[in-house]
């Protein structure tokens, strides 16, 4: 089996799912690191185009461009997943706030 398949199944996809679902400060730092390292990698590959091909050869992907595509798609999906998680988290906090206000108002009204 090609190394890329093993890496994808055992390492990258689970790691990206965890990163996408987690909204803690550690995972946020990792995401920021990834977000900034990704354009740096792209810039580096413009200056040294053979870099992606060399990495592709190591992990068993035919072309460097394919590897770049895989990484781009995974990064994009991770950020969509993260945005979804963050949205749900904020929605939940919002709901708790709405409930607290409603109960406080009800308590105020029932207090003689």
């Amino acid at each position, binding site marked *: 089996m090609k190394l890329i398949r093993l890496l994808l199944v055992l390492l990258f996809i689970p790691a990206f799912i965890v990163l996408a*679902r987690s909204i803690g400060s550690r995972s946020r730092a990792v995401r920021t690191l990834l977000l900034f390292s990704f354009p740096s990698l792209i810039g580096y590959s413009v200056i040294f185009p053979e870099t992606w091909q060399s990495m592709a050869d190591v992990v068993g992907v035919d072309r460097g461009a394919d590897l770049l595509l895989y990484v781009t798609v995974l990064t994009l999906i991770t950020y969509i997943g993260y945005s979804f998680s963050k949205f749900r988290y904020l929605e939940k906090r919002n*709901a708790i706030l709405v*409930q607290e206000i409603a109960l406080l108002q009800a308590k105020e009204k029932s207090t003689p």
Partner: protein
Amino acid sequence: MNHKSNELKALSNRQLEIAARTCCIVPIYNEATVIEDCIEHLRTIFSNILVIDDGSTDDSASKAKKSGAQVIRHAINVGQGLAISTGFKWVQSQNKFRNIVTFDGDGQHRAHDALRLVEELENSGLDIVFGSRFLGHKKSDTPATKRLILKTVSRATNILTGVNLSDAHNGLRALTVEASNAVDLTQAGMAHASQIISLTRKANLKYHEIPVNVLYTQYSQRKGQSILNSINIVTDLIWSDE
């Protein structure tokens, strides 16, 4: 008033006592067309009616209040699950009720069914009693597509939670105030119905299911959950971080 007197005459003293220690929670969102009839119908049996207005933009809240219900209002619309949770929390803080009934505000449910649920709850010493439109001798009036979706959701919920219910998403249910402490809802939307079942299982609550009637009017069908919404329910359950 005469209507209420007639209904009350038909109730035994025991039924009146049960109804008096029960609080009916009615979550609503833009139900101005039917809420007065719904509350008046409930008041033929129950005197404690708590309407949770989930950020309605029409005059549902004032109509509910005028009909004799107590109203708690969410500032914005957040979902039926949170409305029920708000109701539970308020009832728990009152220390004067023994039972809770959840009752849809669109006129689909019958007050006598609600009473039967609470009677079953008290007589059998149960923690929670679910209403089911698919039990009993009478053939359910549920439209075919809706029936298929509801049955599928029930099967999926039964497999995921390990309970055995025929109608997972029926809004008519009765539970003790004590049991409501274990049913701490975090699903704000319609997935709360599956979450109630899941929490029932987790907390080892004693439950039972009895047949109830669900009236399908043009209004309730228009207002009811769309088939597409079942996708949202499944997504909410899968993506839940509970």
